[in-house]
């Protein structure tokens, strides 16, 4: 057996036999399976659909108390039908405040005198939540629409909800069901999954190298194998371990979702396609190669894992970018920013996978993204192999980004 294969086998066996690896490999699908079982049990006992159970989990808790209003504009003549128990009129703010304090109402509105000119309404509520604003209460919308249309209910509805559009796609590809929260949760999960898998396998690379340095095995290894054999054996072995993790996680997620299609009332075409798993393998392998080589480079230069922490933060920064923009990524998977992130090599793996799990992505974008990622991986593996020299491996100095980049580009 060639020495590279010996390194590969030893590294792979050491990694997959580690207790932490086995635990995470099993625990994640187990948590998924447990959630499905729990949802199933709730569904059976409440009769709610699984989709609505998940929706409930993601809805903010809304107060069931009625809300008060003080109409200083004089526009509100009657409370719209159906809202009699949800809205209470107060003649002055003192009474409204007292009712709020005694928890008879959950909040109150003051419709200002110049409402017609300014649209100004003050919303008074006991808690402070700058993010949710007035949007939590639809009662005031209904009240004002009804007042402005002089009690014409149909007109009031149209003001509130002017377009009730049905989208018809000319492609025969199934569009995602915007009402099903799973269509948003799955890209979230895929983004985080890719972040975790690539980060954890490339971090394994770093710890493997620094471990050999700290155990002082490096000097023995350097008189037995070449730096290139050592680096390639490690990259492939830890990549295989990570791939095993990705396939087990994605595969079990796929099985779980596909076997519970009826449970979540997903259209059959929305089942996670096998193509996602295949693209997942490519994006994982290339993304891993990029980040593992960067970590190997750090490992070659620093004397111990502790010294490496500052350096790893800089290197993994691009991986965090998709997480920062995760909302745009999921709400607007075709926006310019998201498309750029899914093509830029350092952010491509998790961004493209998130896009692929939410919408059909044009094939040219996938191939361009993969191509650029492959070029970056080749560049980095070559650069790091040059840096992976015995003198660096045995000396170990304090990490400097400037030195790291200089070595990287001079070796490529």
């Amino acid at each position: 057996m060639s020495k590279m294969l010996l390194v590969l086998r030893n590294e792979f066996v050491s990694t997959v036999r580690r207790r932490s690896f086995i635990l995470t490999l099993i625990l994640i699908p187990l948590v998924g399976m447990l959630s499905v079982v729990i949802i199933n049990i709730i569904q059976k006992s409440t009769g709610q659909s699984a989709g609505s159970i998940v929706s409930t989990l993601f809805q903010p808790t809304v107060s069931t108390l009625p809300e008060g209003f003080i109409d200083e504009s004089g526009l509100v003549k009657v409370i719209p039908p159906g809202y009699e128990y949800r809205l209470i009129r107060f003649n002055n703010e003192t009474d409204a405040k007292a009712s709020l304090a005694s928890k008879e109402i959950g909040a109150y509105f003051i419709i200002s005198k110049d409402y017609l000119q300014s649209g100004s309404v003050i919303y008074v509520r006991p808690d402070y939540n700058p993010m949710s604003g007035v949007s939590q209460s639809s009662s005031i919308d209904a009240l004002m629409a009804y007042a402005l249309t002089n009690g014409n209910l149909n007109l009031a509805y149209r003001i509130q909800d002017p377009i009730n559009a049905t989208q018809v796609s000319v492609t025969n590809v199934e569009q995602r069901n915007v009402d099903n929260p799973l269509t948003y949760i799955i890209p979230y999960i895929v983004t985080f999954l890719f972040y975790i898998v690539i980060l954890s396998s490339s971090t394994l690379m770093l710890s493997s190298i620094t471990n050999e340095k700290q155990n002082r095995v490096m000097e023995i290894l350097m008189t037995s194998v070449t730096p290139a054999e050592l680096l390639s054996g490690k990259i492939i072995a830890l990549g295989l371990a990570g791939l095993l993790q990705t396939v087990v996680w994605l595969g079990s997620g796929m099985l779980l979702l596909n076997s519970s299609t009826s449970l979540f009332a997903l259209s059959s075409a929305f089942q996670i396609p096998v193509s996602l798993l295949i693209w997942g393998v490519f994006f994982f392998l290339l993304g891993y190669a990029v980040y593992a080589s960067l970590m190997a480079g750090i490992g070659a230069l620093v004397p111990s894992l502790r010294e490496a922490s500052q350096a790893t933060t800089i290197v993994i920064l691009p991986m965090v970018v998709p997480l920062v923009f995760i909302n745009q990524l999921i709400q607007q998977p075709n926006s310019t920013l998201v498309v750029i992130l899914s093509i830029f090599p350092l952010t491509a793996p998790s961004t493209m996978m998130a896009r692929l799990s939410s919408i059909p992505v044009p094939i040219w974008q996938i191939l361009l993204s993969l191509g650029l990622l492959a070029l970056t991986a080749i560049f980095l593996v070559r650069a790091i192999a040059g840096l992976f020299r015995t003198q660096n491996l045995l000396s170990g100095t304090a990490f400097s980004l400037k030195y790291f980049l200089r070595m990287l580009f001079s070796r490529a």
Partner: protein
Amino acid sequence: MPSIDVREISKKFGNLQAVDKVSFTVEPGEIFGLLGPNGAGKTTSLRIILDIFKPDSGTISVLDGPMSEEKKNLIGYLPEERGLYQEMQLDRCLIYLATLKGLTESEARSRVNDYLVRFDLLDARKKKVKELSKGMQQKAQLITTLVHEPQIVIIDEPFSALDPVNTQMVKDILLEWRAKGTAIVMCTHQMHNAEELCDRLALINRGRVVLYGALHEIQHQFARDAIVVESSQDLPDGLPGVTSVQKHNGSKLLTLAKGVKTEDILRTLLERNIPLEKFEIAMPTLDEIFIQVVKESGGEE
């Protein structure tokens, strides 16, 4: 043909001249001592021989030619900074390192097993390396150095962390390997061990070879004009040709006047019927030579 031929190698780290035109040869079937104070350049010289570092200048021939990946399998190396995979089981660790030296898995397994028996480590084979005592780890390290039956053995401070019993065992093994024709390079501070084992040696100070040759020649070169005499009877005062008599490890050290030969003293003692249990030329110990040479060549760094 020497197993190792080092010619004029030099290596600089920044402003530090770690090795400066060092030359020596190591023959098959000999134990060669590479001696010197801390930071003298011994380990750097070894690393250059092993192709871990490239020299700035000079040449090295190992087993009749430049170092190659294949030749690395014919060398056993025990580095000064011992290293084994701490989290791995002892036997798995030793077998893995042995296969990296070109043994097949089954060969590695059977030879590692033999060594574990010989080194009294068989009961510890399933333990993690970090659970072993320092001495046990040292013995395990020695197994990785020898298991592939190398033609050249390079060992840096082989006796550190060993108790007297294990020290003797390692000495016996080194002598056994020398008898098999293996070329052994030994770096050590422990001069009494070097004196006991080495056939030839090089003393390095500040990166330069300051003393080089066969052990007995070097000792003769540094021998003072003195003899060691042991007798059941007190030596008479005023022996002709003797300038002073000192106690010396239970014997008497007789310093001779200039131009006096040892045979003259022996004749005088026999003529005076003094019973002799020991009569030998006073050889300096390697320790004494080491200190003298290091002082003369500029002290320790």
